[in-house]
């Protein structure tokens, strides 16, 4: 328990601030509609803020875990394996985003906005609106951080993928495999029938990314070389 408490404190205010700031920014954008939008569109924009902000914050957070310890040599000598420590930090990063997401869903449900967009699938199954893309981008960020041994390139990859999903949204709906891997299927997906398969695929992808990252991090000597600067 002490270790968990320590990790939460070590994460720092920047890591804790990122998910709420990202969500607040997108909620603000969702509400800046010039008064022309219908309730249904505003509801979709609010849910889109959840579906888009959480994966981005969690993905960049997860991508920033490797390569920032000033004394990895020391970490590698202690009985707790370093990859367990990194996994604990990943859980803290994703857990904080998840806690915030549940609170946002509760807020939207309490104010009635959640029901005004028909693609949310109720409050329970609807948690997959944010959970699947958040775990997927979080897992990929963790893997990219492990592969690149530093946050710069990993963060660049995650943010670019997020942007690609935004600007090429319609092009990414053409084929079935693209729709399965599309991050924002709830609010920008073209085929509502593919939603459940899409959410499931993203979860499987998240597990696969996490497993590969776990294997990569098992080779501690890779981390000793640090990031090429």
């Amino acid at each position, binding site marked *: 328990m002490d270790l968990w408490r320590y990790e939460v404190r070590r994460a720092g205010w920047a890591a804790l601030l990122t998910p709420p*700031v990202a969500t607040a920014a*997108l909620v603000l954008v969702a509400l800046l509609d010039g008064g022309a939008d219908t309730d249904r569109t505003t509801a979709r924009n609010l849910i889109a803020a959840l579906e888009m902000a959480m994966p981005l914050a969690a993905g960049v957070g997860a991508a920033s875990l490797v390569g920032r310890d000033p004394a990895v040599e020391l970490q590698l000598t202690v009985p707790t394996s370093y990859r367990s420590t990194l996994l604990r930090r990943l859980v803290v990063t994703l857990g904080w985003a998840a806690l915030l997401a549940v609170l946002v869903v509760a807020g939207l449900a309490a104010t009635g906005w959640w029901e005004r967009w028909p693609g949310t699938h109720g409050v329970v199954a609807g948690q997959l609106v944010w959970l699947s893309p958040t775990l997927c981008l979080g897992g990929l960020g963790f893997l990219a951080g492990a592969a690149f041994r530093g*946050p710069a390139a990993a963060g*660049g990859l995650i*943010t670019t993928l997020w942007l690609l999903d935004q600007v090429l949204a319609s092009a990414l709906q053409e084929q079935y495999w693209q729709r399965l891997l599309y991050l924002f299927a709830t609010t920008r997906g073209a085929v509502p029938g593919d939603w459940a398969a899409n959410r499931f695929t993203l979860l499987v992808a998240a597990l696969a990314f996490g497993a590969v990252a776990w294997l990569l991090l098992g080779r501690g000597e890779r981390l000793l070389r640090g990031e090429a600067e």
Partner: protein
Amino acid sequence: MSAAFRYEFLMQVRKRSMWVAYGVIVLLLGLLSFRTLGDVLHDPVAKETVASIAFLVNLILPVGYGCFLADRLVRDDRLGVAAVLDATPASTAGRLAGKYLGACAAAAIPLAIVHFGFAGLYAAVAGRPVALGWAVALFAVVIVPALLFVGAFALVVPLFVPAPLFRVLFVGYWFWGNAIYPGSMPTLSQSLVSPIGGYPLQVMFGYPGGDVEIAGPVPGALLNFLRPEATTATAWLSIGVLLALAALVLSAAPALRARTTR
């Protein structure tokens, strides 16, 4: 300044992770645009085709290099070498300029490979060598100003906003300030300060053509005072404004560094 430039450039260019990340991004872009690639490569209008390539490069890749460059200035402090560098005879301003230009020059190499690679492929397939000339012009007036603008912010903002938070905010800003249609919400896109280069693309290269506009006033949109009519003069003004903002942001770096390292 030249020594800082050389070392910063070499450090960035030798960063294998940057090349791998760019490789993945370009592979994905190629995969997603594979079906339309055939039509693009046989388009007879060289200027517009190469402009469309520059537009895509300038829409997607700045997010990547903005994130790559986000740790360049703060890492001197993180590694504990800032104080040693400050003790050298080299001036602070010279080192900062060298670091900034070196990092931007290194970030320009992958951009140039992608941009001139596609332009060269088009020139060869369509039999239009003039495309390479247009590619050089587009690189100079569209891609480089965006790089210098983003580079300045990416170096300086992480001095007071932690790098991960900067990356998240930067990609959000990039999408909001460049890709959102101004009629749907208040945004900086299509304005003089939009680094995607809508003014030069539209005025100098006829992109995107037809009735579609990516620069200039939008009826009913907020912030239209930042969107004068798109003319050659306003296109140059847009480039000038971007470079002036970059210089302004960079000039704040020494004071910010002094505050954070105190």
